[in-house]
Structures are given as C-alpha cells and as structure tokens.
C-alpha cells in the first residue's frame, strides 16, 4: 500500500481540477441565483452572457499584449477583466431596459421571462460570434505552473507527480476574494441589505421605500461582474469556445438548484458539489486503486462514466434534488 502516492494522484487528478471547476461553477451559479432571487426567473442567457464578457476580455487582452503590457507571472487577462465587466454590465443593463423591464411592469409569468431570456440568448450568442467567431481561443499567458510535475517529483522523491497550474490557483484565489466581497456587500452595506430585503419580500421592501429599479440595476451589475469573472476564469483554465459556454449552463443551473435557488451560500456549495461529483464519477480510479491495493488487478479503468457524459452527472444530481428536496439543500425560494 502506498498511501502517499495515492493521495498525490488523487490531489492531482481529482481534487485540484474539481476545486478549480467548482469555483467557476460557483461564480456562475451565484449570478443565476442572484438574478433568480431578485428578478424571479431562470436566466437562460447566462452562459452566452458569460461568453460575451469573456470575448470582450480576450479582445482587450490581445490589445494589451500587442502594446507589450503584461502582468509578469499573472495572466494579462486580469488587467482586461474590468473592461469586460463594464461592457457586460452595459449590455445586460441595456437588455433589462429593452426587454425585461416591460414584463416586470406587466407582472408577467416567470415563464415569459424565461422565454424572453431565450431571445436574449440568441442575440448574445450572435454578438459573441460577431466579435470573436466560433473557434477555440487560448489567451492565458504568464507562468503556466506554480508546481510542475518534474520539480514535485524531485522535491518529494515520490513516483507520482503533482501539478498545480497557475490558472487553477488563480481561480481559487479570485473566487475567495469575490465571494468575500459579495457577502460583505450583501450583509453589511445598505444597498446589499436592500437587495436581500427585496428578494425576501418584494411588497414589504417597496413599503419601506426601497427603489425596485435601483435594486434591479444593482443586481444586473453584480451579476455581470460574476458572469464575466466566471467566464474568464473558465476560459483561462480550459479554453474559450462559445459553445462550451452554452453547455456549461446545465451544470450552473444544477448547482444553483442544488443549493436552493435564490440562496448565495447554497450556490457556492452547489457549485463545488456538482464539480466534485462530475470529476469523481468520470475519473478512472485505476491508478489510485493501484497504489492502494497493489495486488488487485481490476478488469477495467474503474471509471463509472465516460467523460463525454459529464453532463449526465449534473442532470442526475438535478433530478435527485427535484425528487427529494425541490427547494434545494439550503432552502431556496419555492415560488
């Protein structure tokens, strides 16, 4: 039995990738859950808005790179990120003004909002295609690894290597900062409290003089920031392909529902839960098992599900939650 090597293999292939992916999903699910809490609909345009913000960030990154600007070991995209956030915020505020505000005034059924968000999704998708095309783009620069496999082997003398990519570390650090800032904002500032009050009980919030349009605007701006950050981190970590951002919609929704729609803590927990299940179910465990039980010769790869079915994992989690606890683990809204 070789516990150390098994642990390193587990960290390298399961824990670190799942943690980074979970952080990206958590940021995406936070956006979905905030929009649900305040505007009370599931935003199908979320993935494509993420793609739009990322596309703007990539374009600015290329511009900065052409000017010779760089952040040293950190990716230049971090410098471009504020521009991406600003552009996405302007765009979503414009769509709110042009599309959703009308239905809000009408007090239309939530499903009409969802339908409208599908229209917005088409437009955003087209805008992203116009901006950057449909091909895969890589835009990470700076240091690629914080710990690389060969150095790790030399330091520890273990046969199994461990790699920590800088984008993975960056994802986790940025997510912690963003979540801390968001919870500080929601719990400590007047605007944040107004948002929570509006989410809890719209009529009561209106009676106490909270301006609903201001709350909605604020929500969109925060959601735009979360979308763009999530999208850029995902793009840095994997690569940017607009269609992947449409597909990531399902795990994001699953994360938000698992945690309880409208509940920010739940969204974060849901993001990590979905990511860890997805990676754990699609990882071939034969290597880890080989270290733990050297005498055992398993017939296959000990992989529960092929990686191409990773979306099935989010789907199954979603179904289980819908069957047994439709309001989510952290008791979200049940409107």
């Amino acid at each position, binding site marked *: 039995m070789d516990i150390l090597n098994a642990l390193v293999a587990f960290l390298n292939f399961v824990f670190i990738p799942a943690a980074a992916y979970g952080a990206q999903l958590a940021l995406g699910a936070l956006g979905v859950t905030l929009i649900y809490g305040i505007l009370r*609909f*599931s935003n*199908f345009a979320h993935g494509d808005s993420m793609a739009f913000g990322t596309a703007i960030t990539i374009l600015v990154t290329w511009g900065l790179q052409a000017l010779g600007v760089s952040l040293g070991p950190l990716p230049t995209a971090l410098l471009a990120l504020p521009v991406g956030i600003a552009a996405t915020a302007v765009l979503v505020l414009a769509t709110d003004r*042009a*599309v959703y505000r*009308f239905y809000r005034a*009408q007090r*239309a*059924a*939530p*499903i*009409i909002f*969802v*339908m*409208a968000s*599908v*229209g*917005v*999704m*088409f*437009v*955003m*998708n*087209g*805008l992203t*295609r*116009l901006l950057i*095309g*449909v091909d895969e783009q890589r835009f990470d620069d700076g240091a690629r690894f914080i710990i690389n496999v060969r150095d790790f082997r030399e330091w520890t003398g273990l046969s199994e290597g461990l790699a920590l990519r800088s984008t993975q570390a960056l994802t986790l650090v940025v997510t912690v900062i963003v979540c801390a800032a968001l919870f500080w904002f929601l719990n400590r500032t007047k605007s944040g409290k107004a948002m929570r009050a509006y989410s809890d009980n719209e009529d009561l919030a209106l009676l106490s003089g909270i301006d609903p349009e201001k709350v909605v605007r604020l929500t969109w701006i925060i959601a735009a920031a979360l979308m763009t950050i999530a999208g850029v981190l995902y793009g840095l970590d994997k690569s940017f392909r607009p269609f992947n951002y*449409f*597909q990531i*919609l*399902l795990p994001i*929704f*699953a994360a938000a*529902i698992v945690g309880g729609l409208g509940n920010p803590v739940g969204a974060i927990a849901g993001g990590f839960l979905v990511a860890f299940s997805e990676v754990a179910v699609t990882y071939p465990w034969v290597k880890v098992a080989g270290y733990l039980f050297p005498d055992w010769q398993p017939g*296959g790869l000990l992989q*529960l599900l*092929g990686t*191409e*079915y990773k*979306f*099935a994992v*989010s*789907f199954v989690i*979603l*179904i289980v939650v*819908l*069957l047994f606890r*439709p309001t989510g683990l952290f008791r979200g809204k*049940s*409107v």
Partner: protein
Amino acid sequence: MSSNRQAASASPWRAPVLFAILAILFVLEGTVRNGMFSGSWNTSLAILNMGLISAITALGVNMQWGYAGLFNTGVVGFLAIGGLAPVLVSLPPVEGAWSAGGPRLILSLLVGLGTLALAKIVYARTRRAWSVALVLLVGLVAYRWLFDPAVTAIEANDSARTGNIGGLGLPVLLSWLVGGAFAAAAAWAVGKVALGLRSDYLAIATLGIGEIIVAVLRNEDWLARGVKNVAAIPRPVPYETDLQQNPAFADFAARWGFGVAEASGIWVKLCYMSLFLVVLLAIILLAQLALNSPWGRMMRAIRDNETAAEAMGKDVTARHLQIFVLGSAVIGIAGAMMITLDGLMAPTSFNPLRYTFLIWVMVIVGGSGNNWGSVLGAVLIWFLWIKAEVWGPNLIGVLVGPLPDGDIKAHLLGSAPHMRFIAMGLVLLLVLRFAPRGLVPEK
C-alpha cells in the same frame, strides 16, 4: 401565457392571405433567378420539405406550450431520439452483431431499468436512503458487468463498416411511429420528475435530457455508430438514379421541359412532400379534434388558470404529463422523418440553437395556441433562416461597399453568417413583446 388570451377580432382572411404569401415566396424561389432567389425548383422543394418537418416539430412544441404552457428546451433531444428509430427499425440487420452480444445487451438494459424500478419500490416501502443506495449500487455493478462485454463484442464486429447492433429491416415508414414512441418514453421519464414543480424546472430538466440524448447518440457506437454516422438509411420513395434510367420517366420529364437529372430530383422531393403533408394534415386533424373536445377545453382551462382548474377537481400535473408526452411524441415523429429525408444519421449535427430554440421562434412567431399558426411560422421562419444565409452576406456586401478595403471590411463580410442568430433573437423578442399572440392568433 399570462392573461392576455382573450380572443380579439382577427380577420378570418388573415391566415389564408399569409399562407398565400408564403406560397408565392416558394414559387419565386423556384422560378426567379436573381440576387435573392435561386430559381431552382430543387432548392425550393428542399427548403419546403425541411420546412414541413419543422412544422410538425413546431406542432409538437405548440401542443406543449400553446395548450398547456410547458416550456420544453430539449426539443433537440426528442428529435434526436426520434431519429434513432429509422436506424434501429429500417436498416438491414448487421451480420454477426446479434450473436456477438445482442441478448446480453438487452438483458443489461432490462437490468438497468429493473434496478431503477426496484429502487423506487424499495424507497416507497422502506423510505431508507441506504437501502436504496445499496440496490442502486448492486444494480449498477450487475448492469456494467453485463453491458460492457456485450458492447465491446458488438463494436468489434466489422467496426470499419458497421460495428453497431443493426436494424430490423422493417419498412422505414413504420419507424416514424417508433420514433414517436421513443420520444414519448423519454418525455414520460422527464415529465414524471420535473412536472408539478416550479415552471422553470421543466425548462432546465429538459435542457439536460436534450444534451444527454445527443451525447448518447454521439458516443454509443453500438447504437447508431456514434460520430461515424449511419448512411444509406432506406427510403420510402424512389431513388434518383433509378428514375434516370427509366425510359418512361425520361419521356415524362421531356414532356414537362425538364432535364432528366433535374426532373428526378424534383420528383423525389415531391414524393417526400406528399408523405410529409399527409402526416402533417393527419396530426393537425387529430389535434383540432382534440382541442375542440371536452379534453381540449379542460386543457385550455388549466392553462389559463391552474388554480381554478385544480379547484374544479382537475389533476393538473397528470394532464400536464399527458400533453407533454403527446407533444414530445409528435416531435419524435418529426425527428424520424428528418433522418429519413436526410438518409443519414449524423449526431454531431444536432445543435440546440438550430433544433430547439429556432423551433421556439417558429412557434412564437406563428402564434402560440394555434396549430395553423405554428405551421405558418415554421415554414416561414425556416425559409427565412435558409435564405438569410444568402441574403445576409449580400446585404452586408451592399452596406460595406463604400468602406475602403481592409481588416474591418473583411471581418464584417466574414461575420455576416452570424447575423442571422441576432436577427432570430430580435424577431423572437419583438414578437413576444409587441404581438405576443403571433401572426395567426388563437381563436
């Protein structure tokens, strides 16, 4: 939809006039050759045939949305699973595939389904999570133990040419019904879970099932060869080459003044068109009869006010499940017809923007709740979607004409094909806001 369903006085001539305009568009496409139209009857009929299939899909979606207010975002999956039927029903059997692992494969699938059923029974009886988990674990191991060797054996069987389980060699028209049954089964499973909860949940769950069905078709080579595609699916109509070698047909073509190659293409497309029209009209007839029956009134009552209908003793969730399954079956039939028309099962072509959300644009534009509206919207939007591929670049070409040659001009010209996504999104948003009842409103 919300409360604005009250019938307004729409002119009774509206639908006929719109259909006439649509017919003129297709005639122009068939006869006039200029910057806008191709002047080829083959192109015109090809667009029409796909438009008719879109119309049947739109009818299915309209049943779910227009009669019951259910938002199905997995249309692509139900089309795809319907498209599986021609492959499994009408292809000739693959030699050796069945003996390689057929019975074992069927057994494994039965074990898989049995496990789920057993888990449900155990849960209902004991309400203990760990006993359910134990059942699922044992079932999963048994399923994989049966399934994996069978699949390996089937896929190893002449994998360059086949490597799939093969079909039954039955007539392809039969597969259309089977496709509907496949889609209905998938819809029942999703609907059973997601209906009766918040309205967005069905949308999210169907988004998931759509992606999973397409992923299964893409990766399960034993089923329909995955991304290696299945070609040469049998046709219900004659082949062009056979027609061209038939002297009687050559005479017939010459009498109408067409070349024999062109005429054979047109003839085949007309055959398909008649088949599709028969199916379309049959579905509309059944749907109209159902809508005007007490059942249809109940459905509309539920849609317009669920609480009131429930207070009158209607089981809203059960009715929703019923209509969801029926609508999905219609979508599945359309999927089987589409694969029959193409003669090719290519899972990579199932794109949700094209096969789910474009269908939604068709239904909303046509007039949700109105079957004829859905047909009109489907054929019209499909025509525009295809022609936008030609018109978009032409339009952009005219618009950027004055610009100096350079990167910006090249980029704009190159990105013209993407404009149609924006255009479709805008059409959906504009119709939803300014004419929520569509081109042909519900009566």
